[in-house]
């Protein structure tokens, strides 16, 4: 198992190197340079050239690439934002915890509400409870998160004056963003869990367990659920990676200073260090999330664990 984990960690480094190379190359060929955004239209071509020269963006591709790869992967220096004028790593240290907290709470809610709902639906398949919860799940999936966010603001901030509409001043500021981030996930999770549980509910081992007189609670949570959770955990792992990057709309609506908005501003402002830094961090989080998901597979399913220990990298 340790060998498997070590191999996956080494692959993580390769993945990050490839991501770094790709994002650098893509940003290099995107039209426009930082001076076009940072200097006003009155700036002359010479002024723009000199401005870009100071930033090092006029150098040849291979020179810039070499400098970027060395600084990022050897010195762990993501550079300084052209727009914010603050080291990217320093700014990410402030923003990642906020977005990570938002995403993590949303994932936890997804898991602790979505999974039991899905199990309940499956256990009461085609009954009123199942229909009702699936209708709610469909509504949850259909609602755009920004629309839900705006509706909550109108209801809880404007009408009821219970919650603040924007900012990060207190814990109350987090309630609506968390709900907006998690509703769709809960709905998707519930449907996915229902589907997965329905596949296992008629399995022979479940019938055997019931025949042996195992309590229904144990049948569900000790026998059925571990088998049904594999696709659900896979989905939660992917959702975690997306949660770090995909909250830009929620962050914009709630004026929440997170990684999503930081990266969007970087893209629009041709702020290369910000974009590269954010993409690398997101890639790292996604890769770690996938690794954790794979390890959880092994924990849940002994067959998979045996594969890791026996076959190394192959599942």
């Amino acid at each position: 198992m340790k060998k498997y984990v070590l191999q996956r960690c080494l692959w993580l480094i390769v993945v990050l190197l490839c991501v770094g190379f790709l994002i650098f190359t893509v940003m290099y060929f995107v039209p426009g340079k930082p001076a076009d955004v940072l200097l006003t239209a009155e700036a002359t071509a010479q002024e723009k050239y000199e401005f870009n020269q100071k930033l090092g963006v006029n150098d040849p591709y291979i020179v810039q690439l070499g400098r970027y790869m060395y600084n990022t992967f050897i010195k762990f220096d993501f550079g300084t934002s052209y727009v914010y004028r603050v080291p990217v790593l320093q700014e990410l240290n402030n923003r990642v915890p906020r977005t990570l907290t938002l995403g993590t709470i949303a994932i936890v809610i997804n898991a602790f509400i979505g999974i039991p709902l899905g199990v309940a639906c499956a256990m009461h398949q085609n009954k009123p409870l199942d229909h009702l919860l699936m209708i709610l799940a469909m509504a949850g999936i259909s609602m755009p998160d920004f629309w839900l966010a705006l509706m909550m603001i109108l209801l809880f901030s404007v009408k009821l004056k219970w919650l603040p509409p924007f900012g990060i001043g207190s814990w109350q500021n987090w309630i609506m963003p968390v709900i907006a981030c998690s509703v769709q996930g809960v709905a998707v999770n519930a449907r996915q869990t229902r589907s997965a549980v329905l596949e296992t509910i008629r399995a022979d081992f479940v019938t055997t367990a019931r025949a042996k007189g195992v309590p229904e609670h144990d049948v569900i949570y000790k026998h059925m659920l571990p088998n049904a959770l594999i696709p659900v955990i896979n989905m939660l792992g992917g959702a975690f990676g997306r949660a770090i990057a995909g909250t830009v709309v929620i962050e914009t609506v709630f004026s929440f200073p997170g990684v999503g908005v930081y990266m969007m501003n970087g893209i629009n402002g041709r702020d290369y260090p910000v974009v590269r830094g954010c993409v690398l961090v997101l890639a790292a989080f996604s890769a770690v999330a996938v690794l954790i998901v794979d390890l959880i597979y092994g924990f849940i399913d002994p067959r998979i664990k045996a594969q890791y220990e026996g076959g190394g990298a192959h599942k």
Partner: protein
Amino acid sequence: MKKLLSALISGLMVLSLTACGSSSSTAAAASGAASSTGSATAQSFDTIIEATKTASNIDPLNMNQSGKNFLWEVYEMLFDLDGFGGDMYGVLADSSKGEYKGYDHEAGTPEYTVYLYQNIKDSAGNAITASDVVFSYNTMKDSGYAHGWNTLASVDAVDDYTVKFTFTRELTKVGELSAYWARCFVFSQKAYEASASKFASDAVGTGPYVLKSYTAGSGITLEKNPNYWQTDTTAIHTQHQANIENIQYKFIDEDATNVVGLQTGDVDIVEEVATKSITDFQDGGAYADTYDVYQHANNLTDMALANVSSDSVCNDINMRLALFYAIDPVGVVNYMDTNSVKSVYALGNANFPDYDSGWEKEDNYETLSSDARAAKVKEYLDKAGYNGQKIKILCLNEEHYKNLSQVVGSMLNAAGIQTADVQAVDNSTYQTLLADSTDWDLDVCGWAANDFIVNCWDHIFSVGSTGKTGTFIDQNDQLITLLNTARETATHTQENVDAVHEYYISQAYGMGLCQSIVNVVYNSKKITKLVFTDKSMILPGACTYTN
């Protein structure tokens, strides 16, 4: 079961509809419950809260970035301008000294001597001397943000409180001095070098307010400077007053969120509220007892400029005239909403002191009545030999410019002129495309200046990104000569300004489309009078309050 499901679905739909709805209907329903301050957490009246666009940093060197209003409360310049196009007055410069109230200048020479107050200190207690002024200007010049400073040769400290500015020539054009002296904040060299971020995330200034806290992407809090250096109250201009203890700037980019902030009482001032959202805050509106709306015309003029290079179909003056006669400015204003924009009749607007209202009565493509335009379009299309080439329209990817471009395109199509799809792009791509004369024919954009219309025209027609005489104009000595004559202080007469206007109209280089109306919504229970900078930004510290 089916009936139950149908009832449930219907109930959900009704629920979602009642939660939806315009802000006015929501506000109307809540009006009975809305308190005068509106906020669940009551705001102390020693604090005023303004919503601004997100500032990427608090760097005083890049003062033209959005969301940087707070800089004018924390930092000061040698001089400032008393409103848009107003007179220059001394701030750090001692107006009691020098022939020109703060400075001396011998006519015919490129040297200007500025005299500082001798008791200036920043919020960290550092004394500000001439060497700090030198440092500030050199730092600004090296930063790359001080474009247009190509006539500044050197800045030197004559003694501790005297600074000599040497230019490459005598500054004789209108607004040239203020472009240096009222566009560079002064700070302590010691404080700047001690700052790890070089003032990108901290601030030490000489202004009436000090930075209390800054959260990137979230907001800024300022508090009154208890040790403000200027103790002579008679020398403090209205714009530099500190009439409130604390100022909070909250970074909010969405118009809807701004409106919500006003409705909940979490925000006291919003400088740009969309016209469609101000009804609730005007007389008779749900929040009219707490808020008021102050409207003023934006300094920016929206216009359509032609690409006159040989790569464009607009190289032919007849084609340009056909295009501009096809665009009906009255129709543009009607389409864009007469409550949101107003008409303009030049590449500039009536805010400028050297704007001539007589231009509105002239007979040209800016002023011709709607029903007479079709004949003119046909005439000039025939002269141009138009054979169906598609006109490429370029604009920034902002809703306002996209709408303008759409209406311009529609008018051209209605007149029989083919257009390609509008290229609405982000700022960086826009600058790149603009510099390539093969990529566009008509640029729908906005231009402004801080003081005079001739300087606005200078921005448009002078050396631009391509290094040629204007991004849109090939070498045109006559235009530049007329412009330089009009910009000289001694010859800045209405007659000379008119001559420039007449020339660019005769060449059909561009056409004014409209001017936006800016809606400032503010808490009238707290604020009795708004005070603005010369760039029309509110100074919350300088506003007057009911307490």
